[in-house]
């Protein structure tokens, strides 16, 4: 039994179908990257897993449980956290309150986790009472990751966590992702910075026009001349 199994998922918004039968598998503790051109359905795939988009066909199962048509607010209780690409913080809430919302479904004492997360993101700790809307793009991305971590998740779905960031911030975000993974959290990553992301990943999927094109080890995808030409910018 794999941690996450997406099987032949067909999904979209209203009449528009974006995923035409996508399948991916993720094992416990893995980092897997999904790459592909704009509009290939990468973000829709993540939204379908987390329940924001209801699939028309296919199945999503997590730790053996069928979560295909569950609501997002139930799926998060299974230990899956989703960090969208944009609008991924609550701008009028303070940094601290954003983190509390990350732990919304937790009924146990999450203060140790809070201390740990502040330790990992000292910039956020310093500004904990400030409104998230005041943060810069890079800091928001950090807060979005931190918010996700508050769940103490089994699986994190990250939609382009480094999009639009300065190179230094990109390195910093990827470094945090590696650290998160080292604590045993499985990560499904959608990335524009495909080269950097694949370096971190054990495996990668190539998605195009809402269908699986290829699946391989991260390193092999990087070395595949066809992939390099099409998706990694030469």
């Amino acid at each position, binding site marked *: 039994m794999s941690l996450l199994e997406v099987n032949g998922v067909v999904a979209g918004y209203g009449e528009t179908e974006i995923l035409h039968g996508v399948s991916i598998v993720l094992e416990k503790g893995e980092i897997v990257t999904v790459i592909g051109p704009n509009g290939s359905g990468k973000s829709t795939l993540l939204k379908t897993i*987390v329940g924001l988009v209801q699939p028309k066909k296919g199945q999503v199962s997590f730790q053996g449980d069928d979560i295909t048509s569950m609501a997002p*607010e139930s799926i998060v209780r299974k230990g899956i956290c989703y960090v969208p690409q944009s609008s*991924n913080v*609550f701008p009028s*809430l303070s940094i601290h309150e954003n983190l509390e*919302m990350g732990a*919304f479904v937790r009924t146990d004492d999450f203060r140790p986790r809070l201390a740990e997360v502040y330790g990992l993101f000292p910039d956020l700790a310093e500004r904990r009472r400030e*409104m998230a809307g005041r943060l810069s793009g890079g800091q928001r991305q950090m807060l979005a990751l931190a918010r996700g971590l508050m769940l103490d998740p089994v699986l994190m779905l990250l939609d382009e966590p480094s999009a639009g960031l300065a190179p230094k911030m990109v390195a910093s975000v990827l470094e945090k992702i590696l650290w998160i993974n080292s604590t045993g959290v499985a990560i499904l990553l959608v990335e524009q910075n495909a080269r950097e992301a694949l370096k971190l990943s054990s495996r990668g999927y190539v998605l195009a026009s809402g269908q699986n094109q290829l699946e391989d080890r991260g390193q092999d995808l990087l070395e595949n001349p066809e992939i390099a030409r099409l998706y990694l910018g030469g």
Partner: protein
Amino acid sequence: MLEQITHCLPLRLTARNVVLAGLLVLLVLALLSVVKMELVVNGLFLGAILALGAIGLTLVYGILKFAHIAHGDFMTWGAYIVFFLLGSVLPHSTGFGPFTFGYSLFIALPLTMMAVVATAIILDKAIYQRLRRRAVNTVVIAMTSLGVAIALRGLVQVIWGGGTEQYPRLSKPFYQLPMGVKIPPDWIFIGALTLILVLALYQFLTRTKMGKAMRATSDNLELARVSGINTERVVWWTWAIGAALAATAGVLLAVFQAQLFPVMGWKILIPLFAAVILGSIGNPYGALAGALIIGVAAEVSTQWITPAYKPAIAFAIMIVTLLLRPRGLFGVRD
């Protein structure tokens, strides 16, 4: 608390802002020397009542993303339920303490809040929730609420007629305040109750899990859902708070005007929306500030123009806000 409030505002304590604030205070002082103090005080009390309506309206807008046009008629509905309870159910009483109304009002008010909350939740279950589930355009939902507004007012007229009514009252002398300001004793009740409710709401929104979840949902519905917040429950809480505040606002308006009539809430809808827009849509503290500004501006305007134009002042402020600063005074970029 002060620190938290300043954090909610898009202002920092920079030298420039301090100077601007100083100039603003000077401007206000200059205006006060021309303006009759009595009108300012009237405006503040009217503004306090408007605030209770506007806070509910802005919360509903923030969570449900539609303009709830029936909000004014929720106020009317509340005012009339109290009228019914005072006249037909509760023992007749007037002149409680310094006030014109009797102790029965203190029993009638919470009962009425509950009744209006029930009305709001029934309406949501019967109408708005169905429209939400069908992902209907929010303009359609707003127009539906216009229908609800007309129906609710019709119901009031069918039950109580179209005339002007009064709560049982005993005339009391006004309080004499410095600077030639006279206020009816009932206004103390209006001010105190508004203050208590606003502080309670502040505590709820900043201290409780549901309050924070409400603010989170207002910021970003999808992110709230993937955080595990049951947004339908948030919607119900929003209706409950909005309706309870609207009911109170209606009753206080009836006390303030010393009369009630079927279009009292409808007539106040423009000032409510003006306050919401001025204070940035979705921001309850902004709605409070907006309502106080609208209240004072409308009252003070009567020094120079006929009182009949009071609603036009609110309308003018709304238009100017939309033209110059559509985000409102407290808008935060997303």
